[in-house]
């Protein structure tokens, strides 16, 4: 028996550790450090219909126990991802979750339909929560009706299960979660970044050229844990939790509040081996806590 096995719609995960979208490119770079087949799954960088250059630099700034980014969804576009990035990943025994972004419903639908047919794409992650693009993204993620409609539109064309990625920058996260569930989402991934800003100490202007950026890293973990806790009580679809995960203890925390798997973002930059290290540490953590298998931990905060 594999104690770390988790079964989710479309995803049979050998362990619950998934590099987060935008923090792992399309895998090549971290493939220099370890065998990507070791991972539960990979969430690839947001893909849009056309090539996007993204925002001007600087695009990142450090904050206390966190970082801001405003990459602006830079990516080579759907065609290139289908022709190059996804085929390169086929040599690994690892399911791919394709992060889908756009500016209007039609783009999302077009990308979703095409990318869901790629052989190694086992699920979609609908990015309705990117705070770093002028239009599209987050406005879908802050209005329940738009979120639900977009989910339904994408579900209608996708060959694989659809997970919707929620923004934490909302008054009522449970409301949005229920809306995307009603729209037919197979799962939820959360949280995307909190909107933040850091200034240059001398000039008083934002360090990030875009002005605001998305806050991630250990600093946001308490917000993420609270939101996963709340959403998991309000929906019946599985959650992939994220926000500040850097250790096996963090993984246990996300599972405890009701996530079924976790994504690891910023921590990859701090330690390129963080994902395999967490995977290796999990069995001992289970022993310490007295659980047979990881799925036993899921939702224990609520029990």
């Amino acid at each position, binding site marked *: 028996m594999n104690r770390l096995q988790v079964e989710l719609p479309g995803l049979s995960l050998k362990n619950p550790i998934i590099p987060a979208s935008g*923090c792992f*490119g399309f895998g090549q*770079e971290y493939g220099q*450090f370890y065998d990507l087949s070791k991972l539960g799954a990979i969430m690839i960088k947001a893909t849009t219909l056309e090539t996007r*250059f993204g925002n001007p630099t600087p*695009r990142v700034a450090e904050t206390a126990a966190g*970082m801001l980014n405003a990459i602006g969804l*830079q990516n080579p576009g759907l065609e290139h991802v289908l022709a190059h990035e996804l085929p390169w990943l086929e040599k690994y025994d690892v399911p791919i979750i394709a992060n889908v972004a756009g500016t209007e419903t039609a783009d999302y639908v077009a990308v979703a339909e095409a990318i869901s047919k790629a052989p190694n794409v086992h699920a979609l992650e609908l990015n309705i929560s990117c705070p770093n693009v002028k239009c599209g993204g987050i406005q879908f993620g802050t209005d329940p009706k738009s979120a639900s409609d977009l989910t339904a539109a994408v579900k209608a064309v996708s060959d694989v299960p659809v997970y919707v990625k929620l923004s934490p920058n909302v008054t009522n996260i449970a409301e949005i979660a229920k809306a995307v569930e009603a729209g037919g989402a197979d799962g939820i991934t959360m949280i995307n970044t909190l909107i933040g800003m850091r200034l240059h100490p001398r000039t008083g202007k934002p360090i990030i050229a875009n002005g605001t950026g998305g806050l991630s890293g*250990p600093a946001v973990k308490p917000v993420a844990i609270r939101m996963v806790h709340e959403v998991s009580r309000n929906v019946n679809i599985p959650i992939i939790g994220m926000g500040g995960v850097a250790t096996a203890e963090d993984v246990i925390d996300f599972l405890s509040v009701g996530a079924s798997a976790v994504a690891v973002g910023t921590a990859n930059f701090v330690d390129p081996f963080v994902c395999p290290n967490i995977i290796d540490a999990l069995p001992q953590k289970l022993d310490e806590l007295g659980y047979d298998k990881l799925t036993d931990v899921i939702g224990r905060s609520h029990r």
Partner: protein
Amino acid sequence: MIHQERMKVVRQQQIAEDIFELTLTGQLVLDMKQPGQFVHLRVTDTYEPLLRRPISIASIDHELKEFTMIYRADGRGTKILSEKHLGEVVDVLGPLGHGFPVEEAEPGQTALLVGGGIGVPPLYQLSKELHAKGVRTIHVLGFQSANNVFYEKQFSELDETYIVTADGSQGTKGFVTDLLKGKAPTFDVFYSCGPTPMLSALEQAYPDKKGFLSFEERMGCGIGACFACVCNTTAATDKEYLKICSDGPVFPRGVVKL
């Protein structure tokens, strides 16, 4: 090949105002192949400061498995780094990026090396390697003021060296380009590392020379995964963008849109 290694501090000393010289030892040194590459350092095991700091490799000793960095300690991370004592460890990711192509200067030729502030350090290993193959070098090193000047002696021992300070407290007053205008040195290829305005001024000053420039940008991953450090390109390349961390930090002149 890129490694992550907890490397031991062999020497750490302050060599100018806010400027420290740090030597680390470990296996990773054996993979340092080119001057101008950098390492990405984690200075603490806690979450604040969180990110790694990119620092250039200033000199390499393969035999002793040691390498040296020179850095300005004025921010949160570099200040912590400057407090590391002999025997303590620093978490190093590296060697990273593509450095200066030593092969672009032929034996007997002259190379102009222009550095500004904390852009000076990688030129030292470069100059040593150029000399090892019989290339003459002219070093033009710009600093804020006399207090910040470092490695004048080391560079002078290798070859002709000029110091420029913004406030005129040592050497020529002004910018490196001011000195270059006056001296009008003859050379075959130039290599430079420093603030972007300096790199830009050099490109303009020598429109017909072969040259290689090292760029800086704020980084996330340091290995090409996060798209934090991209720069725009000119028509000279068919790439739509370049990543400073993994495609650079050194690029041939004219490729990066300045």
